[in-house]
Each structure stands twice: as C-alpha cells, then as structure tokens.
C-alpha cells in the first residue's frame, strides 16, 4: 500500500487479514511438514540406536584366564609383594580361550591378606587376590597405569585405591571401579581363580 493512494478502509482490512491468515497457514503447514519429518526421523533414529545393557560376562564359576586363555592359579598369577603389580585377566570362553572384550577386562591385584580395608568386599577376595573392572568409571578408558599403590587411568588421570575397594582417590571419576568377587577351585596345577558372581556394580561410566 503506497501512501499516495486514497485510503480504502474495507479493502485494506481484507487485504491485511488475508495476508495474516496466509502467514498463519504457511507457518502451521511449514511447521507441520518440518515437524512430521524431523520428529519421525529423530524418534526412529533414537529408537533404533537404543543402547541395550549388555549380558553380564561373569557369572558364578567362570574362570579367570590370561589373554591367551590359560587359567590362573593362586600360586603363580602374581608374585606375593607389597607393591601394586596388576595383571589384566579375562573371563574364560566356553570351551577354552579368553573373552577379550574391553568390558570384560579385569585388573587382578595381590597384596598381603590383612592389608585390605573397607569398603573392599573381603568375601570377594581370596588369598590376598582382589579383582576390579578395568573399565574406568569416568569415560570408559582402560585403566592401565599405576602411580604408587594406586590404579591410574592414563586418559584423564583418575586414581583408584585397590586396597579400599578401588574407591576414587583423585581425578574426575565419579565412582569406584566395581569389584569382581573371586574364589578358588581345585585344579590340576593348583587352586584356580574363578568368579563367584558378577561385578558388584555397573561396569564403565553410567
């Protein structure tokens, strides 16, 4: 509407109303079209990519083996020392071999039997051995370093104390490494280490 045309009130009103209605309709149909596609696409993707909790790898009676699948005995898994020398062990595959999935990795440590303190589950330790998940509870890295007598995650510097139920002693991790209760059974070469149940907490970050 240019200003030099004489005002025609009714005409102008209709014009504006029409334009407004058209705008609203365009907005609604546009939003509907975009919404229909994006909501269905996003919902579909969210559903299909749904994160499913994996099956537990350790159940009662699963033996601990090294990466090559050799069973571990209490006598020679780790030499008896006062210092932290963790070994990475895995659950035994049915019919031999090791399940070397990242989430299955376990840090096996050995200390004098009376050195474990709360909140370690003492029933889950055997002959000075204790086992903890190797998956850092911060962002899921493999905890494969040590500093002093502490586990040290090389990714972001989280520290866990193996003598206190792997509780967090430094760094960004929010919760301790879950303990794996272990026991022994008699084998040919001596007492074989095995799990007496699943991990006592969720493995990895939650």
């Amino acid at each position, binding site marked *: 509407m240019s200003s030099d045309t004489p005002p025609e009130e009714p005409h102008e009103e209709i014009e504006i109303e029409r334009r407004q209605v058209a705008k609203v309709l365009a907005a609604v149909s546009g939003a509907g079209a975009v919404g229909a596609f994006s909501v269905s696409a996003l919902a579909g993707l969210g*559903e299909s*990519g749904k994160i499913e909790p994996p099956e537990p790898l350790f159940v009662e009676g699963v033996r601990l083996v090294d990466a090559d699948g050799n069973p571990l005995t209490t006598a020679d898994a780790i030499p008896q020392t006062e210092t932290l020398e963790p070994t990475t062990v895995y659950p035994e595959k049915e019919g031999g071999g090791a399940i070397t*999935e*990242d989430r299955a990795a376990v840090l096996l440590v050995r200390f004098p039997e009376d050195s474990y303190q709360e909140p370690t589950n003492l029933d889950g330790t055997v002959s000075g051995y204790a086992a903890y998940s190797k998956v850092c509870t911060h962002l899921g890295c493999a905890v494969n370093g040590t500093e002093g007598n502490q586990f040290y995650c090389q990714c972001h510097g989280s520290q866990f104390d193996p003598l206190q139920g792997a509780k967090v002693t430094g760094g960004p991790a*929010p919760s301790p490494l879950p303990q794996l209760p272990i026991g022994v059974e008699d084998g040919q070469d001596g007492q074989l280490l095995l799990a007496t149940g699943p991990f006592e907490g969720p493995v990895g*970050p939650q």
Partner: protein
Amino acid sequence: MTRDSPDDDTASDDAVADGGERSDSPPAPQTDGAGHAGGYDGTTGGEPVHGREIETRQKYPNNRLFTWLDDRLELNHEILGKAFPEDKYGSFLLGEIALFSFIFLALTGSFLGLMYEPVASEVTYEGNAAEWAGQEVPGAFASVLTITYDTPFGMFLRMAHHWAAYIFIAAIALHMFRVFFSGAYRNPHEPNWFVGSVLLLLALAEGFFGYALPLDGFSKAATTIGFNMTGAVPVIGEWLQALAFGGAFPSQVGQVIPHMYFLHVFLFPALLVGIIGLHMMILMRQKHTEHAPSSRGGDRTPAADDDSFVVGSPLFPQQFLLSVVVLLLTAATISFLAALFPVQRIAAIGLDSPSSPSPDWFFMWVFGSLKMIPAELSLAGTTIVLGGWAEFIGGILIPMVIIGVMIVWPLIDNTDEPQHFTVDPLDRPAQTALGVGAIMLTIVLSIDGMRGTFSEVIGAPSSTLYPYLVLMTFAIPLLFTVRVYVWLTRRQRRLGRPTGPGVSLPYSATAVRWLDRGLTVLALGFLAVGIELVTGSATLASSFTGLPVIEQLFWLARVFAGLLLLLPVPPVYLALALVLMGLALGVAPAFAKPASRSTRL
C-alpha cells in the same frame, strides 16, 4: 554508507540483457564491487577504471574460446571479475588452503571409502603386515590393514587423507584467527562468521568420526570417550548417543561402525559441501573486507571514506593463477608430509588400548579440559562433590562455552555502521588481547591434555604435576591477556590514538616490570619443557625406527632446519620446489614393497 547495493547490480544487469547488446558506456560509475584489476586495464591502457566499464569481452579480445563462451554464458565481472583484495601477508589465502585441502580430503577419501569395510565382525587378515597375518581381527581393522599394506599407493593415500584433515582443520583455525584479529567479522560480515563456525564444527565432527573408523586401539579409546561424553549431557544424553552413534560403544560396535561410516563419508561431507557453497556465496555477495584505504597505492587510491567498491585482483586471470599455485602448494605439502611423516601406523598401534591414549591434536584441548575437572573439589575447607557432573563440565560445558563465545563474538563486539576495511590488530587492544588470551587458553588446555607424556618426559608423577598445571591453566591466559592489553593501550596512547573499549588498568611501571619478569620465567619454563618434549618425541620416534635417540634427534633437527632454510625463498620457487619434492617423495614410497615396509613399523 552507500556501498554497492544489490538492487543497483540487478537493475544494471537487466538493462544490459533487455537491450540485447552490450553497452560500452557504464550504467553508473563504481556500482560494481568487483573488477578492477591490479594495473590491468584491458586494451585501452589508459586511465584506471572501475567496475563494469571494461567488458570482459573487451579484456580478452584475442581469446576466441573465451569470447565464444562469454557470448553464451555471459562470463562477466560478476564472477570472473570478482575482486580479491591485495594482501601483503598472504593471510587472505588461508581460506583457500582450507578449501583445497577439503578437495584432497574428498579425493583421497573416495579412494579409501571404496575399499574400507564398515564391519566389526572378526575376519582373518591375510596380507603383508607381518604382525597381523593370519590373525582374527575386526573387519574394519583388517580392511584398513589391507588398504595400508597390501594396496599399491594405499599407504600414501591414507596418510595423505590424514594429513589433509590436519591441514584442513589447521587452515580453518588460522583463517578464523586472521578474520578475528583483522576485525573482518564485524558488520556486515557476521553471517559469514556464523556460517564459518558451523564449518569448523562440522570439520571437527568429521575428524572425530574419521578417527574412529579404523577400529584400532587409539580409535576405540577416543570413540569410547566421545560416546560417554555425549552421554554426560543431562536429560537427553542417552538419546543423543543413540542419534550420533546408533548404539553403545564399544559393546554394540557392530551397529555403531556403519552408522559412523555413513556420517563420515556421506552426511557430514554433503553438509560441508553445501555450507562451503553458502560461505562462498555470501563472500561473493558481500565482497572481501579490504585493507584500509591507507594501504591502497598509487592512482587507485580513492578518498579514504569511499568504500563503495573494492580494489583487488580479478578472479580471472590473476587470482586464478595465484590460487592454482596455492592449490599445488597445498597438494605438495600434503604429499610431502604424507610421504615423510606417517601417522596412525595401524599395524604398530594394534587393537589393544594404548598405554597413554590421546585424541588427534585438535581435540587435545577438550581432552585437557576433561582432565582438569576433578570429581571432588576442595576449596578453602569446603568440598564440592561434582561426581558425574565433572565429565559434563569438563567435556561439554567448558568447550561449549569457549566455542559458544567464539560463535556469538560478532554480536558481542558489534558496530552499528558497516565496516568494509580490515583493522590493524595493534589498533584494537581489547579484542587483540582477548584473542591472544583465547589462543593461550587452548594451548595450555592442550598441554593439560598431554599430562601423561609430560610426566613421562619429566619423570615426575602425574599427580604431582596436577596443581602446577591448574595454576598454569588459569595464570598463562590471564597474564598474556593483561600483558598484551597493557602493551597495546600504552602504544595507542603514545601514538595519540583511541584505545577502544575496555577497562583502564591501574598499572604502574613497576607492576609491568614484574609482569614481564613473570612472563620471562614462564617463557624459559616453556623452552625447557619444549626441549624435553623434543627429546621425548625423539625417544618415542626411535622406538619405531630403531635408530639411536641421538641420531633420531639429529634427524628431526635436520628436517626442521631444512624447513627453516626454505623461508626466505620466493613463494613461486618454493611452490615449484615443494611440488617437485612432493611428487618425488610422494610417489617414491609407493614403489617400495609393502611387506618390507610393514616390518619396519
């Protein structure tokens, strides 16, 4: 401000088209932002002229192919005459380097994409890489081994892809620094700053998913961290994980790998192509920012306040030739690096999680920020338990705040008047000081990220280093910002120029002297650490090459000295030398037998 208005352009275009013939008389002087060639004024050889006064046809009267095409396609000033401002530092070419490395990424990526297999299930690798021959490995890992060690030119092209990605991201970052420090993001150029920021984020996403695809130890560690970081976003974390990864990593790796493959080779590149197009369209529409009129030389100098047109070299032929040189130089650099500095040597890395995992360098600052936030914060007797929030703060919040401030910066530092000329960074104390501070922050955060390497090299346990690193993370960016600000405001006052926005600091000469002493100590510390890091990397390199450390050190020094010697060489000869060197070095290793190389790695 009467700059060339879009309406004028369209109107004059229409006029020409309607007339059915080309008029040699200009519609209006100085309507076109494009077109004045640096000293090239067609066949007339007379007074310099601006804008559309020279018809392209008239410019190349002897080129029959050009006139034939011009008759049909109207290759007029709008595109071929687009003016590229002169830039004595070459910094205006950084965007072009980014563009060209993207082209190399697409080309090398197509080669890799045709052979890569996005499967996680175990297959038996039967090939030349001695460490892995006959072993059961994930399909993706096996196919990358095959590309690298069993395919002619495969290793070279894979390394070239990796290096092109590094140069792509580095060039984008340097390009943004140039735009930031020269104030080229200001009104009316804010839209292109936003578009460019989106390009940077897409490039980083490409880098992340590309790193994940080989499924080796490093990629698994980095992807696991990225996956769990995404999950740390409150409320929608799990949904975001499903959207970005299509399943849990690493437990559902079988469905995550094809998902990431699609994102890396199709969705993100397609978005990149589209948005790069948008970036360049906006650039064509708005024209470059130009060096301030004072830098225009000779008879081309318009009145200082006249910004109705841009002076520069036209796209064709001047800028085109320069761009070809830049393209070849980029290609040469990529092939040089790919041939001499193999990265991500997959057979040596293997499948096990590395003893000190690290992301690519462009994510190192995020990695450092993650390391810096502890789960428990003890300050003045009170302990704040952050717990699971630590990873959200370190991995999401801090990077988001840094990137967010960067993106909206043109809205924070805005001007009402359009600014068509660049500024001298020295004339803007506040902005330049902040920019320097931000760069220092990313550097110190990256150093935080390399704490493991650090403690290994220095021999101090990582937890001992932590408090010093925290101090450094806060102190260094702050000190640098203050120091640059003090220096520049003093300079401005001395020259009698405005100091711009910012606080007036109550500094005394003594305070500044102490600040300088502190910075000197820091610089010496940096130097010492730098030397340690060089020897450390030589040690690391010698573990791969089998050379004694001292020899490896000499070798590194030779490479760097060689690069330094190249600096004073004129760019054209440098380009030529690098092209030849790149060709020679790039092609040579491909002729070596893959098997013999794999044993070295």
